């Protein structure tokens, strides 16, 4: 290790492949986040519902998603379903696992955000003659959204970083691409350093953009 010589040229030559891997990373994170959000809304509603069936279904999903390692879920999607003859592509295995986990975590974020709005806000809006739809649209949801916004950003960053587990099922996202390139060139350290910097830049950009949007969108203060 003392006399390890860095050779960066190989890495720079392979940069287009790394970029393509980074694109796949962003791709799978964004899509798993979007679908995760939709499902999370349903799970949050289920968890707040009076129906035992909906509550239990939502609760099982949420508890499973929050208490199992992401890797297990990816393996179950890729190898586990494979045992039943259902063969998911590496991309779809990782995507499914991330959707499953994102939905579970976000459901609790949404539920917490919703329950943090005092019920008196609802009464006050109602007393002004608003119907329930208008109360939610203009009073409850805007306040709720700003409470869940930053936890949502964190979940998105988590998805970007966790998609690197795709390396273990042969997915061609940034980590998988890095793994493939270093194994044929033997420039392990160089490739992983560059990939690390790329992950860092991607997440930093996400956080920066999220902060700028928050500054523009959210006026006033939380009560």
């Amino acid at each position, binding site marked *: 290790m003392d006399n390890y010589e860095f050779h960066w040229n190989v890495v720079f030559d392979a940069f287009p492949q790394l970029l393509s891997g980074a694109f796949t990373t962003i791709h799978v994170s964004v899509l798993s986040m979007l679908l995760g959000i939709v499902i999370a809304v349903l799970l949050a509603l289920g968890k707040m519902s009076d129906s035992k069936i909906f509550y239990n279904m939502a609760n099982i999903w949420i508890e499973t998603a929050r208490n199992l390692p992401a890797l297990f879920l990816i393996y179950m999607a890729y190898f586990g379903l494979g045992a039943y003859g259902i063969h998911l592509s590496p991309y779809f295995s990782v995507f499914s696992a991330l959707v499953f986990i994102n939905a579970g975590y976000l459901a609790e974020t949404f539920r917490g955000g919703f329950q943090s709005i*005092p019920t*008196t*806000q609802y*009464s*006050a*809006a*109602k*007393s*002004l*003659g*608003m*119907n329930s739809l*208008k109360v939610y649209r*203009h*009073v409850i949801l*805007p*306040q709720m959204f*700003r409470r869940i916004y930053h936890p949502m950003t964190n979940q998105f960053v988590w998805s970007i970083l966790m998609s690197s587990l795709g390396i273990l099922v042969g997915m061609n996202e940034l980590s998988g691409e890095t793994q493939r390139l270093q194994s044929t060139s033997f420039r392990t350290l160089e490739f992983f350093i560059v990939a690390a910097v790329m992950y860092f830049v991607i997440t930093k950009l996400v956080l920066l953009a999220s902060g700028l949007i928050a500054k523009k969108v*959210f*006026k*006033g*203060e*939380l*009560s």
Partner: protein
Amino acid sequence: MIEIKGVHKSFGDLEVLKGIDLNVNSGEVVSIIGASGSGKSTLLYCINAIEKINSGNIIVDDIDVHDKKTDKNKLRQNLGMVFQQWNSFPHLTVLENAALAPRIVKGFTKEEAEEIARKELVHVGLGDKLDVYPTRMSGGQQQRLAIARALAMKPAYMLFDEVTSALDPELVGEVLDTLRLLRDDGMTMICVTHEISFAKEVSDKVAFFHKGLIEEMGPPDEVLGNPQRERTQQFLSKVL
């Protein structure tokens, strides 16, 4: 006119209103006093149809509030309500707070709604706070905002539920001044209050609630100045 006839209301096994009869004529100010748990606030919530009643009738301008066919949202536009907790909408400026309902409920344009809101805010002395977010204001200012926000809907009646109870003592005065202003405007008001001297000053009628019933009712000089019922005397001797 608000007519309350034989209203009973229970929360589970607990009966909080045990047959309330009360009329409020247009332009009248009625104060409701009494110990906590005597049903004062519950009655306001029933007038506004935020709470259902078990039996009896509440009629507001010939409309039966608790009739299934009554459009409650439309009804509430005519019944402004201000709560103990002021419930400002923290994501909106003072002006937006007061302009929201006229715009989205009554269908005024943004400009029209803001003009209505501005007038009411100036009226309650918040003309210099229009672009401020409510969390930056004192409780007294936020409570005046809540009053202006309700007034912007041009209600015929205002219901006040212990609007000074959650305020620091030095902020009570400004809110009471606003209520005096409304009385001078001729607004019909029902005030649930613990401010006995204020009730004495502004009311046309005072109702003393005791355990879900009106124990004594009449002009403030009589009920507060020379109460006939023993329970009223006991209550007043404790709070005065």
